[in-house]
């Protein structure tokens, strides 16, 4: 494989695009099977096998079959995209072997899209520089196929897609992540060509600074400033590092980017290296992401073969060597000084700053660490300029942000939205609201163990770094876990403290000891041993931990406690004073009772009860024998008539006389708070 020059990149782009274009006499159809980790786990392999089988049987050689990374809508995996000549692409969801065969016969052989299996038609909205499109906000792509039936909703009419603008994820589900030509055909490595041959280090720093891009790893530090600091430190040896450790539970944006578009990360790193004057770099990836590691390694090999990594890149005289380093599983390694210690082969424990890594980082050399998502945005910024980047988002939080939308929501998936979009739009329009019927939204958890829970009343908060911090949560790396009213907020806080107490590296006592005490208090409260003074202790201790911890882990660990105390204090009070977990999650703090007026005697709960604690017969309201009840909440989840009441522990009286609430709120209705 010859080393490429700048002209070669353009030529490769033209020829590869032309080769893939659907036309009579060439490929007449293209089928993309989306095979990220989720897709494969959901059953993409049998779908692919069925497709190959059908193609062989039909003897068709003019169908281009390719794989790509995550398509974003994880809830509907496996997904495929079918394109035929002069028709907009159609995306099919919930695929199976049989559906694949049906679609092959109908859509690919006969040109009739199969409406009943289709999700949407059209191309996802991106304003990133993609061949053939002029940059500009919210470019409408060509979806006006001549014979498209309205039976399949278009991207523009589907809320999940309509409100998204893809910049980071510009190539998601479109390119084959294992093909560098696919990436080049989508303007890949043109930014490297520009940065290496036409721009000085200062030029690059200026564009990135002007774009207002902030680090997407959590803290939101301006990327351009980070690069500027490091570029000004004189040193022969510097390091350009990428953080792909993604340790937040509930976040998978970085995995998806590394799996779906690995070259975009590499390209960002080459440009960053040029900006700061580094010739060596590492991508630090979690060992739990085998597919991401495999694809990154393949991408590095391809780029090295073609002279896009290594010595004298594109004949520019600039050298950059890149390697992968497998993380060994420690949450604290998301902190930059800890990650660098880990790269040195030691225990990944943070150290005080200053000196900042820009002065003394990996092996005491100036180093810059950027997150995967940050780096994936660099190429389009270089090609399109700072003003283009600022065309989306707000003054202080420009551009777009990727969120991993999960939990009790209909459309679980990976979404990219302009900064400043209200949370409500993300959760209700894009996410489709709460999935389970009869349940209500309770809180959205942002920022993982460092973040917090935001209640319904704050859902109009725009998604910007500043506004989210004002709620007590943080944007963090972009995990967005939606909880419905079947969740208990006290035990949710306990869940996060359990995590941070375990992951605390132990170097500084406020974090090591403090998180353990917080955890113990929360455990007591959820087990019915709470004291009235606990709430005050939690608040005081949280503030102390924040003020005195060494690194970001300790400084943010109390956030889940503080936000739940701020918005859901009544739940803590119910747990402590009334021994009452209204959602019935804390087993020791709930009594389940059937409201005889609402019970239809259908027998559903009776059959579902694992300890056979429910008695009753047809037309006779059922009854729970308290002595046999194990408080598993199965009956509550099973009952279609809201007849299961969740009462305080050991409560035997009239629900109307419950402390502080009327009978209507006595758990009989699904939805408190």
């Amino acid at each position: 494989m010859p080393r490429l020059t700048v002209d070669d990149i353009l030529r490769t782009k033209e020829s590869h695009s032309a080769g893939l274009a659907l036309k009579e006499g060439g490929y007449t159809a293209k089928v993309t099977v989306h095979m990220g980790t989720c897709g494969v786990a959901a059953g993409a392999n049998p779908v692919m096998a069925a497709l190959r089988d059908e193609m062989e049987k039909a003897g068709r050689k003019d169908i281009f079959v390719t794989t790509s990374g995550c398509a974003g809508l994880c809830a509907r995996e496996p997904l495929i995209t079918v394109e035929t000549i002069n028709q907009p692409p159609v995306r099919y969801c919930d695929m199976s072997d049989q559906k694949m065969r049906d679609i092959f016969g109908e859509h690919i052989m006969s040109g009739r899209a199969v409406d009943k299996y289709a999700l949407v038609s059209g191309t996802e909205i991106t304003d990133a520089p993609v061949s053939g499109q002029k940059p500009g906000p919210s470019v409408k792509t060509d979806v006006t196929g001549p014979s498209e039936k309205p039976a399949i909703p278009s991207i523009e009419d589907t809320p999940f897609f309509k409100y998204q603008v893809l910049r980071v994820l510009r190539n998601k589900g479109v390119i084959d992540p294992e093909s560098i030509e696919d990436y080049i055909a989508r303007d890949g490595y043109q930014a490297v060509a520009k940065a290496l041959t036409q721009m000085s280090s200062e030029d690059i720093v200026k564009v990135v600074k002007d774009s207002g891009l902030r680090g997407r790893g959590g803290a939101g530090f301006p990327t351009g400033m980070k690069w500027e600091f490091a570029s000004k430190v004189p040193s022969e040896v510097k390091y350009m590092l990428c953080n792909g450790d993604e340790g937040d539970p509930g976040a998978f944006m970085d995995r998806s980017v590394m799996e779906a578009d690995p070259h975009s990360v590499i390209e960002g790193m080459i440009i960053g290296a040029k900006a700061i004057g580094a010739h060596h770099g590492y991508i630090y990836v979690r060992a739990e992401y085998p597919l991401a590691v495999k694809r990154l390694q393949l991408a590095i090999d391809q780029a090295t073969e073609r002279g896009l990594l290594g010595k004298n890149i594109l004949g520019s005289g600039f050298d950059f060597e890149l390697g992968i380093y497998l993380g060994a599983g420690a949450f604290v390694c998301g902190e930059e000084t800890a990650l660098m210690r880990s790269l040195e082969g030691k225990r990944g424990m943070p150290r005080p700053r200053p000196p900042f890594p820009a002065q003394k980082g990996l092996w005491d050399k100036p180093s810059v660490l950027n997150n995967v998502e940050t780096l994936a945005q660099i190429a389009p910024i270089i090609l399109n300029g700072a003003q283009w980047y600022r065309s989306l988002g707000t003054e202080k939080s420009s551009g777009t942000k990727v969120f991993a939308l999960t939990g009790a929501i209909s459309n679980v998936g990976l979404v990219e939205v302009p900064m400043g979009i209200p949370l409500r739009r993300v959760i209700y329009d894009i996410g489709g609201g709460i999935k389970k019927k009869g349940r209500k939204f309770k809180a959205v958890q942002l920022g993982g163990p460092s973040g917090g829970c935001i209640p319904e009343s704050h859902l109009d908060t725009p998604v910007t770094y500043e506004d989210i911090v004002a709620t007590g949560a943080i944007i963090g790396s972009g995990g967005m876990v939606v909880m419905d009213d079947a969740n208990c907020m006290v035990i949710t806080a306990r869940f996060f403290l359990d995590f941070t107490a375990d992951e605390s590296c132990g170097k500084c006592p406020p974090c090591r000891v403090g998180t353990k005490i917080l955890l113990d208090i929360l455990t007591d409260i959820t087990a019915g041993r709470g004291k009235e003074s606990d709430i005050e202790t939690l608040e005081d201790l949280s503030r102390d931990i924040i003020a005195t911890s060494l690194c970001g882990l300790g400084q943010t660990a109390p956030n889940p406690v503080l936000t739940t105390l701020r918005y859901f204090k009544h739940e803590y009070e119910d747990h402590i004073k009334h021994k009452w977990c209204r959602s019935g999650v804390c087993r020791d703090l709930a009594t389940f009772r059937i409201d005889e007026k609402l019970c239809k005697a259908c027998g559903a709960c009776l059959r579902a009860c694992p300890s056979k604690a429910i008695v009753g017969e047809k037309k006779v309201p059922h009854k729970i024998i308290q002595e046999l009840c194990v408080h598993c909440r199965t009956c509550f989840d099973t009952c279609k008539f809201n007849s299961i009441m969740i009462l305080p522990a050991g409560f035997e009286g009239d629900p109307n006389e419950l402390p502080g609430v009327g009978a209507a709120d006595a758990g009989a209705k699904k939805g408190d708070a």
Partner: protein
Amino acid sequence: MAGGPKILIVDDEPVVIKSAERVLKSEGYDIEGAGGGREAILKLEKGGYDLVFTDLKMPEVDGLTLIKWIKKTNPHIGIVIITGYPSQDTIRDALELGIIDYVPKPFTPSVLLDVTERAVQWSEGRKPKEDKAGEEFPPAMAAELDRVIGAFRNVPGGLIPVLQRAQEIVGYLPPVVQKRIAKGLNLSEAEVHGVVSFYSFFTMKPRGDHNIRVCLGTACYVKGIEGVLEKIEENLKVGIGETTGDRRFSIEGVRCLGACGLAPVMMIDQETYGALTPAKAIGVIKGFDPSVGGAEVTAAAAQEEG
């Protein structure tokens, strides 16, 4: 072989049976005793034994008679003699009858264990188990480990990659492996151990043939992974961080597998399984070992499907 090899100890001195039992039972062997040749034959008639350890000098039916009977009726049973009078003649007679080994009386626990282990391997006709006791591993494994250590000897920050490869090669990182790495990389053993114990990826306990990694991330938590985990633990009879007795499975709790879209999720080896229910999870595990769970589980899974 469930529950370890079953061994019958035959001796007219109860104390010998008692002490052998004490040593071997804790090692997972299934031990029974017989006070003489007659009792031994009656027990052996019922079947199910893998090995017989027998004294030679016993009243009534003596050891040699017992051995002859066993060789005639149950030739697959391995025989070891325990004797206080190991005269060359009796040993030779016994060897001619096809015994595997002999233990001199009085014996130390380590001698007994050693002989038992060899006898079990011999009777099963297989090579020594590579991971047994973790103190020794086959020469090929050691050579591979040394090759990896050599490759990283001069690489700064090479310790973590070496440990990752070592864990791939050996399966886990017992003290003997850590020592070898420390020596090879010219680090202190404390430093190596410090890194091993810091990162959750490294384990000092052997893992099962199939490692089940259960995601304990937020999305999985919200979607009920706890119930799934409970069911898995109940069926395999081990908890998080443990390995089943037959070394088929080990369970590990991990922070987030990054497949939240499919929550709740687990990974078995390199495969990810999503949208789990307790029954579905057991169904998946059954695919690896049909003896897991029972008919009840299959029925529950079928009900859920329907």
